[in-house]
Protein backbone atom coordinates (compact mmCIF):
# COMPACT_ATOMS: atom_id res chain seq x y z
CA UNK A 1 0.00 0.00 0.00
CA UNK A 2 1.08 3.60 -0.53
CA UNK A 3 1.19 5.84 2.53
CA UNK A 4 1.30 9.63 2.37
CA UNK A 5 3.33 11.66 4.86
CA UNK A 6 1.13 14.47 6.16
CA UNK A 7 3.78 16.98 7.16
CA UNK A 8 7.16 18.22 6.00
CA UNK A 9 10.07 16.62 7.87
CA UNK A 10 13.79 17.25 7.86
CA UNK A 11 16.77 15.46 9.37
CA UNK A 12 17.81 18.92 10.63
CA UNK A 13 14.83 19.31 12.96
CA UNK A 14 13.22 15.88 13.40
CA UNK A 15 13.53 14.16 16.77
CA UNK A 16 13.69 10.41 17.36
CA UNK A 17 10.26 9.29 18.61
CA UNK A 18 8.47 12.27 17.06
CA UNK A 19 5.06 11.32 15.63
CA UNK A 20 3.69 12.69 12.37
CA UNK A 21 0.38 12.32 10.51
CA UNK A 22 0.03 9.84 7.68
CA UNK A 23 -2.83 8.80 5.41
CA UNK A 24 -3.48 6.18 2.79
CA UNK A 25 -2.45 7.56 -0.59
CA UNK A 26 -4.62 5.08 -2.43
CA UNK A 27 -7.47 2.80 -1.35
CA UNK A 28 -6.64 -0.58 0.09
CA UNK A 29 -8.20 -3.12 -2.25
CA UNK A 30 -8.56 -6.87 -1.91
CA UNK A 31 -10.11 -8.92 -4.70
CA UNK A 32 -11.25 -5.75 -6.42
CA UNK A 33 -13.10 -4.48 -3.34
CA UNK A 34 -12.17 -1.32 -1.55
CA UNK A 35 -11.66 -2.21 2.10
CA UNK A 36 -10.08 1.02 3.31
CA UNK A 37 -10.55 4.25 1.36
CA UNK A 38 -7.73 6.57 0.35
CA UNK A 39 -7.33 9.29 2.94
CA UNK A 40 -7.75 7.05 6.01
CA UNK A 41 -5.54 8.72 8.60
CA UNK A 42 -3.01 7.43 11.09
CA UNK A 43 0.39 8.07 12.62
CA UNK A 44 4.01 7.58 11.72
CA UNK A 45 7.11 7.84 13.91
CA UNK A 46 10.67 9.05 13.43
CA UNK A 47 12.90 6.01 14.12
CA UNK A 48 16.21 7.77 13.49
CA UNK A 49 17.25 11.33 12.77
CA UNK A 50 20.70 12.89 12.59
CA UNK A 51 21.60 16.35 11.31
CA UNK A 52 24.15 17.00 8.61
CA UNK A 53 27.45 17.95 10.22
CA UNK A 54 30.72 19.62 9.41
CA UNK A 55 33.40 17.57 7.64
CA UNK A 56 30.88 16.44 5.03
CA UNK A 57 28.54 14.17 7.01
CA UNK A 58 25.07 14.06 5.46
CA UNK A 59 21.86 14.05 7.48
CA UNK A 60 19.97 10.80 8.11
CA UNK A 61 16.26 10.10 8.46
CA UNK A 62 14.40 6.83 9.00
CA UNK A 63 10.62 6.90 9.30
CA UNK A 64 8.09 4.24 10.26
CA UNK A 65 4.36 4.13 9.49
CA UNK A 66 2.62 2.84 12.65
CA UNK A 67 -1.10 2.59 11.85
CA UNK A 68 -4.12 3.95 10.01
CA UNK A 69 -7.61 4.01 11.50
CA UNK A 70 -10.73 3.07 9.59
CA UNK A 71 -14.25 2.57 10.80
CA UNK A 72 -13.23 1.80 14.38
CA UNK A 73 -10.42 -0.57 13.38
CA UNK A 74 -6.76 0.22 13.85
CA UNK A 75 -4.70 -1.27 11.06
CA UNK A 76 -1.11 -1.69 12.22
CA UNK A 77 1.55 -1.12 9.57
CA UNK A 78 5.14 -2.22 9.00
CA UNK A 79 7.94 -2.10 6.44
CA UNK A 80 7.61 1.59 5.62
CA UNK A 81 10.19 2.12 2.92
CA UNK A 82 11.53 5.46 3.98
CA UNK A 83 15.16 5.46 5.00
CA UNK A 84 17.51 8.07 3.60
CA UNK A 85 20.93 9.57 4.06
CA UNK A 86 21.63 13.08 2.77
CA UNK A 87 24.33 13.81 0.24
CA UNK A 88 27.62 13.44 2.06
CA UNK A 89 30.85 15.16 1.11
CA UNK A 90 33.15 13.04 3.23
CA UNK A 91 35.70 12.40 0.49
CA UNK A 92 35.75 16.07 -0.56
CA UNK A 93 36.31 17.13 3.06
CA UNK A 94 39.24 14.73 3.47
CA UNK A 95 40.82 15.91 0.21
CA UNK A 96 40.40 19.57 1.19
CA UNK A 97 42.08 18.90 4.51
CA UNK A 98 44.96 17.17 2.78
CA UNK A 99 45.55 20.40 0.84
CA UNK A 100 44.91 22.75 3.74
CA UNK A 101 44.71 21.47 7.34
CA UNK A 102 41.16 21.50 8.77
CA UNK A 103 39.73 22.98 5.54
CA UNK A 104 37.49 19.88 5.38
CA UNK A 105 35.47 21.20 8.31
CA UNK A 106 34.11 23.88 5.99
CA UNK A 107 32.28 21.16 4.04
CA UNK A 108 28.83 20.30 5.31
CA UNK A 109 26.72 17.39 4.12
CA UNK A 110 23.13 17.80 2.95
CA UNK A 111 20.13 17.25 5.20
CA UNK A 112 17.29 14.92 4.21
CA UNK A 113 14.04 16.76 3.56
CA UNK A 114 10.66 15.15 3.11
CA UNK A 115 7.96 17.24 1.48
CA UNK A 116 4.42 17.15 2.82
CA UNK A 117 2.52 14.69 0.66
CA UNK A 118 5.52 12.47 -0.13
CA UNK A 119 4.57 8.80 -0.36
CA UNK A 120 6.28 5.50 0.36
CA UNK A 121 5.17 1.88 0.46
CA UNK A 122 4.12 0.01 3.61
CA UNK A 123 2.57 -3.33 4.53
CA UNK A 124 -0.12 -4.41 6.96
CA UNK A 125 1.51 -5.82 10.10
CA UNK A 126 -1.24 -8.18 11.32
CA UNK A 127 -4.38 -9.63 9.83
CA UNK A 128 -7.38 -7.59 10.95
CA UNK A 129 -11.11 -7.88 10.40
CA UNK A 130 -12.79 -4.81 9.04
CA UNK A 131 -16.35 -4.07 7.96
CA UNK A 132 -17.03 -3.89 4.27
CA UNK A 133 -18.72 -0.72 3.23
CA UNK A 134 -21.47 -2.66 1.43
CA UNK A 135 -22.39 -4.74 4.50
CA UNK A 136 -25.80 -4.44 6.09
CA UNK A 137 -25.74 -3.03 9.59
CA UNK A 138 -26.51 -5.50 12.34
CA UNK A 139 -25.66 -8.65 10.39
CA UNK A 140 -23.13 -10.14 12.69
CA UNK A 141 -20.45 -12.16 11.01
CA UNK A 142 -21.40 -11.07 7.52
CA UNK A 143 -20.00 -7.99 5.90
CA UNK A 144 -16.62 -8.72 7.38
CA UNK A 145 -13.57 -9.57 5.44
CA UNK A 146 -10.20 -10.69 6.69
CA UNK A 147 -7.33 -8.56 5.54
CA UNK A 148 -4.09 -10.31 5.03
CA UNK A 149 -0.56 -9.06 4.96
CA UNK A 150 0.37 -7.48 1.69
Amino acid at each position, binding site marked *: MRVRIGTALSSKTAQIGQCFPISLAEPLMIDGRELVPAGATGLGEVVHAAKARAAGKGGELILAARFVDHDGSRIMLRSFEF*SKAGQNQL*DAAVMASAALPFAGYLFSGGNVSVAEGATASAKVRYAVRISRSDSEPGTEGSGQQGMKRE
Partner: protein
Amino acid sequence: MKKLKWAPLAVLALAVAVTTPAAPTMAAETDKPIEVVAPPAGKGQIVFFRPGGMGFAVGCQVNENDERVSALGAGRYFTHIAEPGKHSFMVSSEAKDVLNLEVEPDETKYVRCKIKMGIMVGRPNLEPSTKEEFDKVSHKLEPVDADDMGPKKR
Protein backbone atom coordinates in the same frame (compact mmCIF):
# COMPACT_ATOMS: atom_id res chain seq x y z
CA MET B 1 62.69 -6.73 -44.76
CA LYS B 2 61.76 -3.37 -43.31
CA LYS B 3 58.10 -4.41 -43.40
CA LEU B 4 58.83 -7.73 -41.67
CA LYS B 5 60.45 -5.86 -38.77
CA TRP B 6 56.96 -4.58 -37.80
CA ALA B 7 55.31 -7.95 -38.24
CA PRO B 8 55.53 -9.05 -34.57
CA LEU B 9 53.99 -5.75 -33.51
CA ALA B 10 51.19 -6.17 -36.04
CA VAL B 11 50.51 -9.69 -34.72
CA LEU B 12 50.46 -8.35 -31.16
CA ALA B 13 48.06 -5.56 -32.13
CA LEU B 14 45.83 -8.09 -33.85
CA ALA B 15 45.91 -10.32 -30.79
CA VAL B 16 44.90 -7.41 -28.58
CA ALA B 17 42.12 -6.47 -30.98
CA VAL B 18 40.82 -10.01 -30.99
CA THR B 19 40.99 -10.49 -27.22
CA THR B 20 39.67 -7.07 -26.20
CA PRO B 21 35.98 -7.81 -26.94
CA ALA B 22 36.12 -10.60 -24.35
CA ALA B 23 37.04 -8.16 -21.60
CA PRO B 24 33.60 -6.48 -21.21
CA THR B 25 31.99 -9.92 -21.02
CA MET B 26 34.32 -10.84 -18.19
CA ALA B 27 33.60 -7.51 -16.48
CA ALA B 28 29.86 -7.98 -16.94
CA GLU B 29 30.11 -11.34 -15.20
CA THR B 30 32.20 -10.07 -12.32
CA ASP B 31 30.06 -6.91 -11.93
CA LYS B 32 27.11 -9.08 -10.97
CA PRO B 33 25.79 -7.96 -7.56
CA ILE B 34 26.15 -10.27 -4.61
CA GLU B 35 22.95 -12.17 -4.01
CA VAL B 36 21.86 -11.77 -0.41
CA VAL B 37 19.87 -14.77 0.80
CA ALA B 38 16.71 -14.21 2.82
CA PRO B 39 17.00 -14.34 6.62
CA PRO B 40 15.77 -17.39 8.55
CA ALA B 41 11.97 -17.45 8.91
CA GLY B 42 10.74 -14.92 11.46
CA LYS B 43 14.11 -13.13 11.70
CA GLY B 44 15.35 -10.01 10.00
CA GLN B 45 18.82 -9.13 8.78
CA ILE B 46 21.04 -6.18 8.13
CA VAL B 47 23.74 -6.06 5.47
CA PHE B 48 26.56 -3.78 6.61
CA PHE B 49 28.97 -2.76 3.87
CA ARG B 50 31.90 -0.46 3.48
CA PRO B 51 32.95 0.54 -0.01
CA GLY B 52 36.58 1.53 -0.49
CA GLY B 53 37.57 5.18 -0.48
CA MET B 54 39.08 7.58 1.99
CA GLY B 55 40.17 6.33 5.40
CA PHE B 56 40.81 2.72 4.38
CA ALA B 57 43.23 2.35 7.30
CA VAL B 58 40.57 3.32 9.85
CA GLY B 59 38.51 0.53 11.39
CA CYS B 60 34.73 0.49 11.37
CA GLN B 61 33.85 -1.76 14.28
CA VAL B 62 30.09 -2.16 14.53
CA ASN B 63 28.77 -2.66 18.08
CA GLU B 64 25.38 -3.27 19.58
CA ASN B 65 24.81 -3.10 23.35
CA ASP B 66 28.57 -2.60 23.89
CA GLU B 67 29.35 -5.87 22.17
CA ARG B 68 31.11 -6.19 18.84
CA VAL B 69 28.97 -7.36 15.94
CA SER B 70 31.85 -7.26 13.48
CA ALA B 71 34.88 -5.28 12.38
CA LEU B 72 34.22 -3.94 8.91
CA GLY B 73 37.36 -3.27 6.91
CA ALA B 74 37.46 -1.22 3.70
CA GLY B 75 35.89 -3.10 0.80
CA ARG B 76 34.12 -5.60 3.07
CA TYR B 77 30.56 -6.54 3.97
CA PHE B 78 28.72 -8.82 6.37
CA THR B 79 25.17 -9.90 7.07
CA HIS B 80 23.86 -9.69 10.63
CA ILE B 81 20.81 -11.80 11.50
CA ALA B 82 18.67 -9.95 14.04
CA GLU B 83 15.46 -10.31 15.98
CA PRO B 84 12.68 -8.11 14.58
CA GLY B 85 12.32 -4.82 16.45
CA LYS B 86 14.39 -1.78 17.34
CA HIS B 87 18.16 -1.96 17.14
CA SER B 88 20.84 0.59 17.82
CA PHE B 89 24.24 0.13 16.21
CA MET B 90 27.28 2.16 17.17
CA VAL B 91 30.71 2.82 15.70
CA SER B 92 33.37 4.90 17.41
CA SER B 93 36.87 6.26 17.25
CA GLU B 94 37.39 9.86 18.48
CA ALA B 95 33.63 10.26 18.52
CA LYS B 96 30.78 7.79 18.34
CA ASP B 97 28.06 7.53 15.73
CA VAL B 98 24.79 5.73 16.38
CA LEU B 99 22.26 4.45 13.85
CA ASN B 100 18.80 3.38 15.05
CA LEU B 101 16.97 0.87 12.92
CA GLU B 102 13.80 -1.17 12.99
CA VAL B 103 14.27 -4.68 11.71
CA GLU B 104 11.22 -6.36 10.23
CA PRO B 105 10.72 -10.13 10.08
CA ASP B 106 11.82 -11.78 6.83
CA GLU B 107 13.29 -8.53 5.51
CA THR B 108 16.75 -7.14 4.81
CA LYS B 109 18.02 -3.66 5.67
CA TYR B 110 21.22 -2.13 4.33
CA VAL B 111 23.71 0.04 6.22
CA ARG B 112 26.83 1.68 4.79
CA CYS B 113 29.94 2.64 6.74
CA LYS B 114 31.88 5.64 5.50
CA ILE B 115 34.90 7.25 7.11
CA LYS B 116 34.61 10.94 7.82
CA MET B 117 37.38 13.32 8.73
CA GLY B 118 38.36 13.61 12.38
CA ILE B 119 40.84 15.83 14.22
CA MET B 120 43.51 13.17 14.81
CA VAL B 121 42.03 10.17 13.05
CA GLY B 122 39.12 9.38 10.70
CA ARG B 123 35.70 8.81 12.23
CA PRO B 124 33.50 5.95 11.02
CA ASN B 125 29.93 6.87 10.20
CA LEU B 126 26.96 4.51 9.77
CA GLU B 127 24.19 5.61 7.44
CA PRO B 128 21.03 4.01 6.10
CA SER B 129 21.39 2.61 2.62
CA THR B 130 19.41 0.57 0.11
CA LYS B 131 19.65 -2.65 -1.85
CA GLU B 132 20.22 -0.57 -5.00
CA GLU B 133 23.25 1.17 -3.46
CA PHE B 134 24.62 -2.15 -2.21
CA ASP B 135 24.12 -3.79 -5.61
CA LYS B 136 26.09 -1.01 -7.31
CA VAL B 137 29.24 -1.71 -5.31
CA SER B 138 28.82 -5.28 -4.05
CA HIS B 139 30.86 -6.81 -6.89
CA LYS B 140 33.90 -5.02 -5.42
CA LEU B 141 33.25 -6.20 -1.86
CA GLU B 142 34.62 -9.19 0.01
CA PRO B 143 32.95 -10.83 3.01
CA VAL B 144 34.39 -10.00 6.42
CA ASP B 145 36.83 -12.64 7.70
CA ALA B 146 35.27 -15.16 10.08
CA ASP B 147 37.49 -14.07 12.99
CA ASP B 148 36.21 -10.50 12.60
CA MET B 149 32.62 -11.62 13.20
CA GLY B 150 30.97 -11.68 16.63
CA PRO B 151 32.28 -10.55 20.01
CA LYS B 152 36.01 -9.89 20.18
CA LYS B 153 38.08 -12.91 21.06
CA ARG B 154 40.37 -12.32 24.01
